[in-house]
């Protein structure tokens, strides 16, 4: 794993729900308007109130993104620096990424006639690729969201869990779906905060990869079998034909042109 991989550490216990991150995100992406309650084409990150806890929701930037493996034109890729980015010039609008995402993050510009997918890009172009922190991390007044190297963020998270027994001893995003670049700490079970708890740690792309890997075998074995069967039936036909020509034909055989 690359050492310079970046990540955000979001500490749910520290968040005061001030929406500064949501506002800064809008500003960084050139969108105006108030913070929204749900993710939308104009709100790429939101702060939701879940039973008194403020929970940020946005793209988790998985290490092996399901959306990226789903995208038929490869428009969604995981960068070496961590962010999962979307190249809108490749997109054809199939929206497979939207259902493939286990966190249901990607949004679609349903109102436009040339719609594109929208999701958090972890400020890759404007900030992270230039070594700056994301807009949301920079805007957070209480340090509930901090930005840094993923290894460093994991160390910090573990330190907090060890220091303070209020935390659930679990860093969401460390291993879920093969790990992510958004790491969450909480004092309430993540399940109760609406986080998707995967049944296994295996990244989703591996599920479909298993099916895709069978293809060459199917083609090889199936092709050989079918060709073999054809050879047999063809041979049988030839034999029958030869035998029949020795006897008298029951009815005249037209030209041998096949109707295929």
């Amino acid at each position: 794993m690359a050492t310079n991989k970046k990540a955000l550490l979001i500490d749910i216990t520290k968040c005061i729900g001030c929406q500064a991150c949501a506002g800064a995100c809008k500003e960084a992406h050139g969108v105006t308007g108030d913070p929204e309650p749900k993710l939308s084409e104009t709100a790429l990150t939101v702060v939701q109130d879940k039973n008194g806890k403020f929970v940020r929701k946005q793209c988790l930037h998985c290490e092996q993104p399901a959306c990226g493996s789903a995208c038929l034109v490869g428009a969604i890729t995981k960068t070496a620096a961590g962010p999962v980015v979307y190249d809108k010039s490749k997109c054809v609008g199939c929206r497979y990424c939207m259902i493939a995402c286990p966190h249901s993050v990607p949004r679609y510009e349903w109102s436009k006639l040339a719609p594109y997918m929208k999701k958090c890009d972890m400020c890759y172009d404007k900030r992270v690729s230039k070594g700056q922190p994301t807009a949301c991390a920079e805007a957070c007044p209480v340090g509930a969201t901090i930005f840094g190297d993923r290894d460093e963020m994991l160390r910090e998270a573990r330190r907090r869990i060890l220091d303070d027994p209020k935390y659930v001893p679990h860093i969401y995003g460390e291993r879920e779906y093969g790990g992510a670049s958004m790491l969450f700490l909480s004092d309430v079970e993540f399940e109760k905060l609406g986080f998707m708890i995967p049944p296994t740690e295996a990244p989703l792309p591996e599920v479909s990869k298993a099916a895709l890997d069978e293809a060459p075998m199917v083609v090889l074995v199936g092709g050989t079998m079918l060709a073999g069967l054809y050879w047999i039936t063809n041979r049988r036909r030839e034999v029958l034909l030869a035998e029949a020509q020795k006897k008298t034909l029951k009815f005249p055989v037209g030209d041998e042109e096949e109707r295929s």
Partner: protein
Amino acid sequence: MPETKTKKPIITVWRVILGVIFLAGAYATYLRFVVGWSAATNLSDAQPWGMWVGVATLCGVGLSAGGFATAAAVYLLGMERYRPIARAAVLVAFLGYVSVCVGYAYELGLPWLFWHALIYWNPKSVLFDVMFCILAYTTVLTIEVSPAIVERLPFNGFKKTYMHWHHRLATAVVLAGVLLSSMHQSYLGGLFLIFRDKMYPLWYTPALTTMFYLSAIPAGLAMVIITLYLCNRSLGTKVDPKILKEVAWVISPMLILYFVWRMVDLVKHGGGPYLFKPTSEAAYFWLEMALFVFLPVFMLNNRWVMNRPEGVYWSSAVVIAGFITNRVNVSINALERATQANYIPKWPEMAVTVMLVTCAILAFRYAVIYLDILPKKAKSTRKWLANAGVAANA
């Protein structure tokens, strides 16, 4: 089905229905491409795939499976008895695929960029493989149906050369077609593998690929049967009802195999406890089973039903209804609990789907009338068999 005779009043019930379908389809097209998504569909961020994927694509492709099954039986396995229906079966498949391709113009957000799929490859994507197989197989089907058109051309030299090469390559083309369609019939199921944590356990299984393949073949054959039955009834073709009965007879063991496999797999992957829960999913599941397995298996094994052509027709129709239920369940109902979308298609979605199906039916009708697709006289059936070689008689 539209009717045949031209010496009839200009305004008939069928023409009025056709007119309504096309007007509605045209208006729906306007809504989709000029007004926007929200006017034309009930799709949303929670439910980004709806009827156009669930019915137009999944069912369109699945119901075309009769093409490759029949082509394999006749051209590769030498079952000459079914030669008279092979051309029609392949034509059904061709029109099915063409309508799927046209349907994608509606379904894609940026349909004019569809060619991106050909230049930006992502081999990790199941959808990429599906798309590639669909394009390749549509090409194969075009080659497979082309002789029916070429043989009507007035250019003798071209015709001769074309038929010569077509004949030489036919086996390879059919073989490629069987492999391609087998692959992507399964891959259509593979599309849903990545929705593991969102799909209701009654439908999610790592064997979705196998399930889609196993269910597509009987449904495809049922589609061939009802198409040919309707042709016999309304276009005056003379397809031996015995052949249709025999094809129908194959469907029942396939459905039983599918059912047993599906149940074993379901229990193995922990879907068992969900079978009898009082949920809407369980109801959808049993509806699917009733229409796709129980009812048709009963009908197909009932002598009284099978001894009359309408019986064969209705059993096949039930199989198709069950198949559509299955695909809609997998693509829409299985996801609703996780996405909480409560999706019901808007009328333009249905209008477009109905219009695509109608276009395919019309194309098929005119192909049967003007081209040599199906035997039109009882005598010609024998000639077809004779042309196919003495093997047919053996």
